[in-house]
């Protein structure tokens, strides 16, 4: 079984957006604007990242009056490492076609990481 070699381009863009200011919390809309992803594509990616422990999420403590609380996201330490590794891998193999490792938008665990 070959290990995961790359994330999908959409997931890479999300990881890149979140790893720009890794200590900051990000809103979904903000990530969507930076990645140009639609909400129906972005949130499944965020869910899979959170399921794998690469992303932490929490509800806003102090909501703006008149608006519902927002959900905030940032990468965990393993998430940051995965983003760095993915970015390094993408730079090292620029001509290599992306290898599908699962359904669209999914992130299969790397070998030995399950």
């Amino acid at each position, binding site marked *: 079984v070959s290990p995961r070699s790359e994330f999908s381009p959409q997931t890479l863009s999300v990881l890149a957006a979140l790893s720009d200011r890794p200590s900051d919390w990000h*809103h979904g*809309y903000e990530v*969507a604007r930076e990645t140009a992803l639609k*909400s*129906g594509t972005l*949130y*499944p990616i965020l869910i899979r990242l959170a399921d794998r422990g690469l992303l932490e999420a929490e*509800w806003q403590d102090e909501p703006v009056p008149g*608006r*519902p609380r927002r959900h905030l996201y940032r990468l965990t330490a393993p998430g940051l490492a995965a983003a760095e590794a993915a970015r390094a891998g993408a730079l090292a193999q620029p001509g290599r076609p992306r290898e599908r490792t699962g359904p669209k938008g999914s992130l299969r665990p790397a070998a030995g990481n399950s």
Partner: protein
Amino acid sequence: VSARGRIAAHAGRAILRLLPARRRDWVEALWAESAALPPGRERVRWQAGSVRLAAREVMGSWRTPGRLAFTVAAALAAVGCWPGSAANVVTATVWFNVVAVVAILGAMGWLARHVFGPARAGWLPRAVRAAFYAAILVMLPTVAIARRYDYDVVDAHPSLHRYIAAGTTYPGPPFILIEGVVLFILVGCALAVLWLTSERSQVSGRALALAVGFGLMLGACGYLSGPLGPGNTTGSPGNTAGGAVNPWLPGSWTSVVTIADWVLLFAGPALLGPIAGFCCGRRRERLPLVNWRFVQCLCVGLLGSIVAALTATVAASATIAVALEFPAAASYLDHGANLTGTAAYLWGLNAGGSEGAFPLIWFCVPVVGFVVSVVVGAVTFGRELGFGGESPPVSGLPIDH
């Protein structure tokens, strides 16, 4: 908040309830985020994403589509059973039957998850479960049609009371007792099917496939020997004993099919059970080898006979219902001849009355399959199981593949 807003909020909450708990937060988060977007097309698009996300998460979980499909199918079955005059005694029984059967099936599903564990991986175990549920739900309206027809005929012609009472569907006091027995059999069959298709039973995929194949073959023979019900005597003037009849087949072929029925009923579990025990690949080592072989043998006999009983009775009850609901079909169903008014009337009466024999099939066929497979399994693997007084010599030996 406007009425439309309140309705949308209720609908949204209802959809959220369908989601697994760990996913609700995400859909709520997506929706809450939309408040930060400028009003207009962009916000609507964002909110549409929450609908897509909810649908994706709902469909991504097997249980929820299964529950939805069951709810829809149960509702359709109820709609098929519900019409009926309040003056018709059968109507109340039919309604009771729908509620009881749907409640039992729902409870069995819940019980199976907590006692037997999840369904075995693969499409076949899930397909067997889904087909079992579908077959029961199909039988609700088809049997109701036959019962209602009989009562309506009796009500219109009081002189037929004695005739119908001699049959099987007169709605007298024993009717509730019969319903109780039928529900008891249903619970037994549901438990058997849910256990044999569960992860915990350790039934191999090949044994399951063998059981289903055998069951379908026996069920098809059963249906061919009596497509209008086992007790129907029309189409065969010489047959007054209530034996198997197929109005489409010449007598000689009917005899062949009937013989095949009996042979398959007994020889199927007797031959295929040991084959499953010896040949089907072993999945785990939680059970001793011989016990595991015995379970495969039991699966073929019990599950195969349940599949057979279901196949024959569902197909026959559907045929009867079609014939009663569409009188024009009766002439085609009975030798393709144009029946006289009286003949068609008696034909319908007989066909309607035949459904009373279905509970008997439901009970007898699985019991025969169970008994034969237990006896054959004990004879074949008895010594290793310790029935012969000797210690099991092969437990723990390397597995077969």
